């Protein structure tokens, strides 16, 4: 079954008198358990596509359906709640809450979901263990390396038990070692827990590990192949 499905999805920006078709009539379907990378040059529309799928941006036309639900029809507040319950986000710049410790960052999402303290604590611990940061869980983001912060971000993205994880250039700011570690972790979570990952990336190391590559250029899908 498709976790994500877009039909005729377009996003047009106005730039003075001209229109920019950042995403141009994209039909895409992502199945549960995929480990997919969206690749393409800068300005090709990768990020806009992810924003639309993640419910962060509204399409100009077309539909986005996540687990059967047409999210392009949701209102602002409903979207926020939908994201909270169904989508995990990993950002290029980690974007952890700087005043909370690693564990608190992971727990935060579950807290917004209204889970009990016990549940939150045990799941946060489990997730930090899975990303190999059990020892660092009381440290704040500023005390962690970039690679460690991004691993906390992955743990945070998984905390809400999302339908899938969207990751926008997750390795762009990481060195090779951290990139390898992060990819190992995500791959393992994908294989063992069946978590669906959808990346946008330039990074050859990520491309090499992806199981499906969607090549986007000028807002259109140029190729889509499994490897």
């Amino acid at each position, binding site marked *: 079954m498709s976790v994500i499905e877009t039909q005729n999805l377009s996003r047009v920006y106005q730039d003075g008198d001209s229109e920019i078709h950042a995403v141009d009539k994209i039909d895409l379907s992502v199945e549960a358990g995929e480990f997919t990378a969206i690749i393409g040059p800068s300005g090709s529309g990768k990020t806009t596509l992810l924003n639309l799928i993640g419910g962060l941006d509204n399409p100009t036309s077309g539909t986005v359906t996540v687990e059967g639900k047409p999210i392009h029809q949701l209102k602002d507040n409903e979207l926020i709640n939908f994201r909270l319950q169904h989508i995990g986000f990993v*950002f290029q710049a980690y*974007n952890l809450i700087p*005043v*909370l410790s690693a564990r608190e960052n992971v*727990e935060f999402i579950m807290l*917004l979901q209204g889970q009990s303290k016990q549940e939150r604590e045990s799941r946060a611990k489990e997730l930090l263990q899975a990303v190999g940061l059990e020892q660092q869980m009381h440290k704040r983001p500023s005390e962690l390396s970039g690679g460690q912060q991004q691993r906390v971000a992955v743990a*945070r993205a998984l905390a*809400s038990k999302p339908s899938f994880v*969207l990751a*926008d250039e997750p390795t762009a700011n990481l060195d090779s070692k951290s990139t390898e570690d992060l990819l190992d972790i995500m791959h393992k979570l994908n294989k063992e827990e069946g978590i669906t990952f959808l990346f946008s990336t330039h990074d050859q190391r990520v491309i090499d590990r992806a199981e499906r590559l969607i090549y986007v250029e000028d807002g259109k899908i140029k190729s889509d192949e499994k490897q």
Partner: protein
Amino acid sequence: MKVLLKIAWRNIWRHRLRSLVVIISIILGIWAGIFVSAFSFGLNDQRKVSMIRNQISHLQVHNPRFSEDQSVQHLLANSPKLEEWTKQNTDAQYAFRMKTMGMAATAHYGGGVQIIGIRPEQEASLTGLQSRVDSGSYLDDEGRNPILIGAALAEKLEVKPGSKVILSFSDEEQNLVSASFKVRGLYHDVSSQIEKMQVFVRSSDLQKLLGVQSNQFHELAILLQDDAQVEAQAQAIAAAFPNEKVESWKELAPELAYADEIMSQALYFVIGIIMLALSFGIINTMLMAVLERRKELGVLMSVGMSKRRVFAMIILETLFLALLSGPMGIIAAYLSVSGTAETGLNLAMFSDGLASYGIGTIIYPVLPNSFYFGTSAIVFIMTLLAALYPARHALKLNPVETMRTL
């Protein structure tokens, strides 16, 4: 909620210096507002006490027509009975007086004065007139027609103790009477107006000159031991002597009675203005905090933090600033008010101005406790209002725009 509190609390310490500047400015604002208020209340209180102790006393009894027309014949309806009554009720102090308007003149100057005939001993214990005699001596039974005049008037008349002053006034039959008085002493008063206006002679001398019997008076002044008893005593005396008019200090000097109320309204207004100015500082700081955290707030909304919670977080951060600084400002103000309440603030350098206003040179700040609560409420409400704009601004942020990238 708990985690929002935690985030908000930690957020205000991300820019320690900036938060401290806001906190300190609120502390200083509250402190200054309250202390100035306490000072003003102290000034007012002192003026009231000084007027009651030195001048008007708690109660005055007159002939009902005396207040409109201070003619000689408007004597108390029943002075002897009043006097008997004062002897039975010994828990207050009393002074019987004669009063008439007239002229005081020497070779150098002449001017209108109020001539007050007193029983020297009664007056000494009631208004402390004796203790305010600086040069010469107080009135007693010795000598012929002694007079006490104010130091300011003495300067105008160019007299000193031992000099002669001619007093002219109308007697009971409207005949002009002039008599020579010998200056016995010079008194001072906190009010220089009074020093220029009032002269004191023995009531027996004045009664003779006016042609009034020695047991007849114009005025009975009463100083009670307890301020709170004023109304009850006024009613008791009025009931016992229905032909007399009894007035409390509030009726005799309504401006003193209203001053407290007017003062407290004016001071709330002043504190309101101070807080208004401070709230712009708060708006500025919080807006800066929101703008520089646009991306972070965008992330919070992306991952599922509702707008209501983002709004609450900004409000909480602002309230923390107020909750930290408000009590400190109030405590600082309380300490400085209670610290100076006993020793007083010496304003000798402004004493001339204060004297004409009717108060001494040392001011004892005082503040009703309700004022601390009122100020706290103003601080709380103003901060809450100041928080609304930055918090609303945070709500309008669009996650995608704030992050540019996902």
